[in-house]
Structures are given as C-alpha cells and as structure tokens.
C-alpha cells in the first residue's frame, strides 16, 4: 500500500489490495478500537507499523510496548475501563504474555479485547513453529482463524463483538500466509473510538487472590459454554461445499483451507467441505452433523493435529464408524512446516487412491538433476552493518575458546562464516541467563550477545541475576538504535514512541549501572582497537560486565542519506592489494567479491563503513568513512 493513510478513508465498499496486517489495521478503525499495543515480531510487525503511521490522525492510542507481556497488561488495563483494545504479537510473543493472558481469562474484560497471535509455520523468521491454537484450549479463550486478508478484517470486528458479549479476550490466530498475503479487501464503515474509559471497582472480579480465583474459574467455564453456542451459530463455521455423494468430507481452517480446496479441485475429489473459522470452542453439533453426513473425513490443518484430536473425540460420541484421515494415525499430512497445495494434494491422492495430476516427484527429480550444487544464498548481515564490526572484535578478543550465547535479532546472522559468533540461541533475552550458567559450569567467563531492543524486552532480569549471583558473564549489547530485523521500529532506547513523538530516552548503560554492574563501557565497534581492548578487560573480570557497542543500523543511515541527497562514496582497492583475501576471509561482507582471483568492492552495495580498510594488512583499501 503506497500510504497507510489510505486506511483512514471512509469510502465503504471500496476494494483495496491489502496485506493481511493492513486489513487488521483497517478492522481496528472499523471496530472503534481505542488502544493498540504491540511488540514487533514477524509476521505481525506491519500491524504496529501501519497503525503507528496513522494512529494520531485516527484518534487511536498506539504504543510499542517493551515486550508482549507489557503490551497485554496495558491493553487489558484499558479494556477493563470499558474501551476496546487490541494487542498484536508473533506466536512466541504470546509465551512472554502467557502469565498475564492465563489469568486475564479469569478476570475477563469489559471493553472488547482482541489478541492477535501471528504464527509462523515453516519458521520463515522465527525460532520455532509452535501452534498457538493450543493457547486457546489452555486458557479457555475463544479463538478465530482467518484464511485471507478479507477474513482477517471481518474476524477482528466479530472478535470484538464476541469479546464484549462474553466479557473475555478473544485470540485471533493468523499465520504468515495470512499476515503477509495481499488480497482484495472491501472497506466497511469506520467507527469512532471511545476517547475516555471508566473504571468500576469490582474487587471480586478483578483481584485474583485465591478466594476470588476459584469462583472466577467457574465463571470462565460458564462463559466457555456461551462461547460454544456462539461457535455453533457462527457464520465462520460453515459448509462451503456440499457434494451429493456422502463419501468424503474435508474439515479445514486458516491458510490450510485454501490449499485443501484447491488440491481437492486439482485431484477431482468430490468432497463436501466444512470450513472452521471459530476454532475455539469448536461447534460440536455442527461437526457431529458433518461427521454423520460423510463416511470419510479428511482433516487438513497446519502444524499440530489441534482440530483432529478434538474431532476424533466428537466422532467417538456421535459418529463412531466414521473414518478420519489426518496426521495422528497414519500421517497423510506433515505435522511440521507449512502446508501447500502440493503437500495437501499428495495427502488427498494417497487417501483417495487417485493419482495426482501433477507429478511432483518427476519435477523434483528434474530440478535436483539440473540445479544441483547451486551456491546457497542465506540471509546475511548487510554491507556496512555495525554488527559485523562487533563480531570481528568479539572474535579477536574471545577467540575460538569462549562460548557465545546469542539472542533474537539480525545479529543471529553472526553464526555464518567467517564471523561464526553464536553457540546457543533460544528465545528473547535468554543469552544473558544462559551465559551465566555456561560460565558457572565451565568455570570461566562466557559472553552473552544481545540487541538493544531485545535487552529492554527480556534482558534486564537476567542482568540483575548476574549482579546478584556474581556471574562471570560479559554482556555485549549490540545497540544499533532500532529494532532492525522487524523493520526499524523504535524502542525505549531511541527516544521515539509509537505515536511518533519524542519521549524520554532510556540509556542501556544507565540501566546496567543502575542494576549494579561495575564495568560498563559504551564503544563504537568500528573503532576496533579500543573496542577489542575493552572486551579483553571485561573478560578478565571476576564478575559481570556490560559492553554496549553503539552504532546505527546501516539501512537506517542509508535511508537518511538518500532522503537528504547525500551520496555514498564507496571504498576502493588500490594497487597495493596483494590479494591476500584477509578482508574476504575475516569479514564476509557482501560488498566484497572475488572475480578472477581478485578482490572487488561492489559500488552498489558498499556503504562506506570502512571496516575492510581497518582490517587490510597492506593498507590497500581507501575511502572516506561516512559516519
């Protein structure tokens, strides 16, 4: 979309090509939501980004919260004052927020509250591919699953209504192929957000001490019964195709529905289709009826057999003779990775004993014969990325022996050769705690590597632990002054907030000192000698230390230069070059290429950071560092 302000047009009936995430923002405006909170994470990031761009004009309060837990706390606080709210996060963000969400289900909300959880089957940009529909089962919260951008918009609006009817938060579970798909979306009417809420004291409902939690759980289960009625009547739980033959019936939800319908069509499989859009609680009666009408039920769902387990239980009571094909018995569809028309077609073909019209194995064989040994092109640190300088310094000071616990962000790409920094990566903030355990077990200093946004998100309790328990951990904060990987969102260390206004800047070094860390240094990683010296000192210490390598993200700098019309003067290789390959071997910068045995600097990619000039033993690289 050329300009997010197009989302603000009243214009009901207008058709726009929207990204799933943009459709969710349009829904925020059509549902009269007052408060939007988020922590950026792929594939949910553009919800916050588009909202941030228009929030002021739309009269919606929007914030980038420090982490997903805080995002839910803020939104739930607002929703309990009767205003409508929405929080958006990636799937693993809901793990962070889970403590709040689980008991928020007990207190409930007064204004409609929607939690968007964006799952990432295939781990396009994630550390795992957990199926967050199970959070709905775990928390007893209703859950809706859109299949495309239009449904994402419609379902947010419905979810707000359901949330207010039940006085419960509602989960909207999307996946990458909904968030990052563009499709036609028809605008509805805009609604005005409530400007000011009202808090009514109701201690027994909102204060979850044991005496009030016990009855609150009973209340929650009652609400769940009401939710089941809503699910039975929901227009999102619908038979989209009815065949006269009563043999095959397909049940599907979310993105998987798209593949299921297309694959069945390609195969020429005559099957009725039950599409489930509200997947918690399930419409048991509707499903039982479908099970009775069809003798062979095929369940097509992405990741875990969430529907299948529950549908099998329904079948046991209502249609014990029905045959169910999915992934819990014989595995017709994969339980890992994202589905596709291909994987579903192969499963259907095997179930129906009908040959697939596309010979995928023939294509695969031809492809592997023709295209073997293609050089890989994994994502890499950009040319000019300050993390490359940091990793160069870290490798020089820490060598091969030191263990490097790393974290979530662009700098995870530091594991690639030749930098090879990163021995353990699990989740946001884990580097700091893990490094402490590693140092304890190995009886020597270990290094934690964490980004600026990640430090604020989940690093601080770990740092306090290092001080409190006096661990020999060197915490290196790679501060590029933005949340780079997800698209350059601001964070507490930037001095900019979600509504795009200036705010108090929180300094990482002040936080570290405040937590009691004695050795705290802030350095420019491109000044490699000074940076290396400080890191060597830190490694010698008997307790924790913090080194902040501060230098802005090169993409941000390049954008700023382009905006101001400042030309970048790329570095050059001079005649003094002996082709020793030191630059290529130690840095792995994409702007350094080798052709006919000679090193070249790409004038398109070079961003004039000057790191290659600093490492060249023959001083054969020239240029002007443009800071």
């Amino acid at each position, binding site marked *: 979309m050329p300009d997010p302000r197009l989302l603000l047009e009243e214009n009901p009936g207008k058709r726009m090509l929207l990204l799933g995430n943009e459709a969710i923002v349009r829904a925020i405006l059509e549902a009269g939501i007052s408060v939007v909170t988020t922590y950026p994470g792929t594939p949910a990031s553009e919800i916050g980004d588009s909202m941030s761009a228009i929030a002021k004009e739309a009269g919606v309060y929007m914030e980038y919260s420090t982490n997903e837990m805080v995002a839910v706390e803020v939104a739930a606080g607002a929703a309990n004052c009767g205003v409508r709210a929405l929080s958006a996060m990636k799937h693993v963000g809901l793990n962070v927020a889970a403590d709040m969400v689980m008991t928020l289900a007990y207190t409930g909300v007064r204004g409609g509250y929607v939690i968007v959880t964006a799952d990432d089957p295939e781990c396009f940009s994630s550390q795992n591919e957990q199926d967050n529909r199970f959070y709905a089962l775990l928390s007893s919260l209703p859950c809706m699953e859109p299949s495309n951008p239009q449904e994402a918009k419609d379902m947010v609006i419905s979810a707000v209504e359901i949330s207010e009817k039940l006085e419960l938060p509602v989960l909207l579970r999307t996946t990458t192929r909904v968030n990052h798909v563009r499709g036609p979306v028809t605008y509805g009417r805009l609604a005005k957000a409530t400007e000011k809420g009202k808090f009514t004291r109701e201690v027994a409902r909102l204060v979850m001490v044991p005496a009030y939690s016990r009855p609150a759980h009973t209340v929650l289960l009652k609400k769940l019964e009401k939710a089941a009625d809503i699910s039975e009547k929901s227009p999102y739980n619908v038979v989209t195709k009815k065949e006269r033959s009563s043999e095959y019936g397909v049940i599907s939800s979310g993105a998987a529905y798209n593949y299921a319908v297309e694959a069945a069509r390609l195969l020429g499989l005559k099957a009725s289709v039950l599409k489930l859009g509200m997947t918690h609680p399930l419409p048991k009666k509707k499903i039982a009826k479908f099970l009775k009408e069809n003798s062979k039920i095929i369940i097509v769902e992405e990741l875990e057999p969430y529907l299948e387990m529950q549908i099998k239980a329904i079948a046991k009571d209502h249609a014990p003779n029905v045959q169910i094909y999915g992934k819990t018995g014989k595995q017709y569809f994969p339980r890992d990775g994202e589905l596709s028309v291909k994987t579903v077609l192969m499963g259907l073909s095997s179930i129906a004993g009908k040959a697939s019209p596309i010979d995928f194995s023939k294509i695969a064989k031809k492809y592997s014969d023709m295209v073997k040994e293609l050089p890989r092109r994994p994502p890499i640190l950009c040319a000019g990325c300050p993390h490359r300088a940091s990793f160069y310094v870290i490798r020089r000071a820490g060598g091969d022996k030191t263990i490097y616990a790393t974290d979530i962000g662009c700098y995870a790409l530091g594991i690639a050769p030749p930098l090879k920094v990163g021995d353990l990566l699990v989740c946001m903030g884990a580097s700091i705690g893990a490094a402490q355990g590693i140092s304890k077990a190995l009886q020597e200093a270990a290094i934690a590597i964490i980004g600026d946004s990640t430090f604020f998100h989940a690093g601080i309790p770990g740092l306090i632990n290092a001080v409190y328990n006096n661990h020999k951990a060197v915490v290196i904060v790679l501060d590029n002054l933005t949340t780079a990987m997800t698209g350059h969102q601001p964070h507490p260390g930037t001095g900019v907030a979600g509504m795009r206004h200036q705010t108090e800047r929180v300094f990482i070094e002040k936080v570290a000192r405040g937590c009691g860390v004695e050795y705290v240094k802030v350095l420019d990683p491109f000044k490699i000698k000074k940076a290396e010296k400080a890191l060597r000192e830190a490694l010698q210490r008997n307790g924790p230390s913090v080194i902040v390598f501060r230098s802005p993200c090169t993409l941000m700098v390049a954008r700023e230069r382009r905006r101001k019309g400042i030309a970048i003067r790329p570095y050059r290789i001079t005649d003094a070059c002996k082709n020793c390959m030191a630059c290529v071997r130690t840095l792995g910068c994409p702007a350094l*290429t080798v052709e006919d045995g000679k090193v070249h600097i790409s004038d398109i990619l070079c961003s004039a950071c000057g790191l290659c000039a600093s490492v060249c033993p023959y001083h054969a690289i020239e240029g002007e560092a443009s800071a």
Partner: protein
Amino acid sequence: MKEFNIVIAGVGGQGTLLAAEVLGTAALKEGMNVRVSEIHGMAQRGGAVTSEVRLGDAVLSPTVPDGQADILLGFEPLETLRNLRYASEKTLVIVSDERIPPTELSAKNQPYPSIDEIIKKIHCFTKNAQVVDTRRLTEKAGSSLVQNTVLLGALAANGKLPLEKQSLVEALRELIPTRHVETNVKAFELGYDYAINLNAKRL
C-alpha cells in the same frame, strides 16, 4: 481465465515485493481476484526471496505449486535457477542479466556461472526464455534502483500476461513515491520497448 501464476525470484533488497504489489494492484484495477504472497523479516537480509502472484476467480492459495508458474520473473540469474521447480515447458522465463554473486562463491573463490550456462539450464525446463539487459536499461533510466520496473515493463510487453499495460502503469504511479515516479515510468517503458524489439527480432 481460470488462473495465472507469476513467480518473482530475486535477492532481498532488489524490489521484488514492490513488483509483486504492482501486479496485484493492476489485477485489482481490472476487477480480478488476486493473491500476492511475500516473505519479510529474516529472509530479506540479502537472502534469496520469492514472491508469488496468482490471478483468477478460483484462486485461494497465495503460493504456486511446483511446475505451475505461467511466468517466472528472475531478478537475478542464480535465483532464477533456484526457482526453476516452478517452471514447466509452458512457462515463460524472463531473467535479468544483473548478477549478484552470493558471498559463498567469493569465500570459496568460485566463478559465477556464465549466462550461457544459466540459459542452458533454463532450457531444460522451458525453451521460452528471455534475457533482459537490465544494467544498460537502468543506466539509461538514470537510477540503479529501478531494475524491478524495467522487468515489469519487459513482462508487460509479453502477450502472455493477462493484464493491460495501462493498469500496470497506473499501479506504478500509485505505489511509487511521487519523486521517483517519472524515473520508474521511464524504466518501465524502456523495459517494455526492449522486450517488444526482442520479440520482433525473434519473429
């Protein structure tokens, strides 16, 4: 039209996302149903990227099954090869000659395959392949950042695409920031003329 599938292959940062959005927007202008799939985040950092555009009333899935691309639009020769699993003898492959050597090649001191080798491999899948001299055309357009619109122009010149040139130009004008519109429209026309001449020569 039942369905029409376009796969766009390139390297993160080359503008494949915008090209896909232009195609999707043009399709919507012509009243078609469309799905565009994109990959953001981790995959963008100079890594291999693929965008898919599917047109047609019955289209639901945003991704194209193997062997089902009507057009494979390659922004980079090696990335075009990497996505040949989408191609069949019915596919038209349009490939830019702009090479971006993966760092692995430099690290191992291996040469980038010649354009002849690349074409030979494409020919194993389809004889219908066009190489676009994008570097020369982008220089002529006056910006190194307009490769994507040059290629869209070349695509529009091909009778196979079920979209009008006019809708594509309108979509471009809507989606590109005002100050870059004229350079991009020029680049689009250069790509268009280039492909028209290429097709005429072939006849």
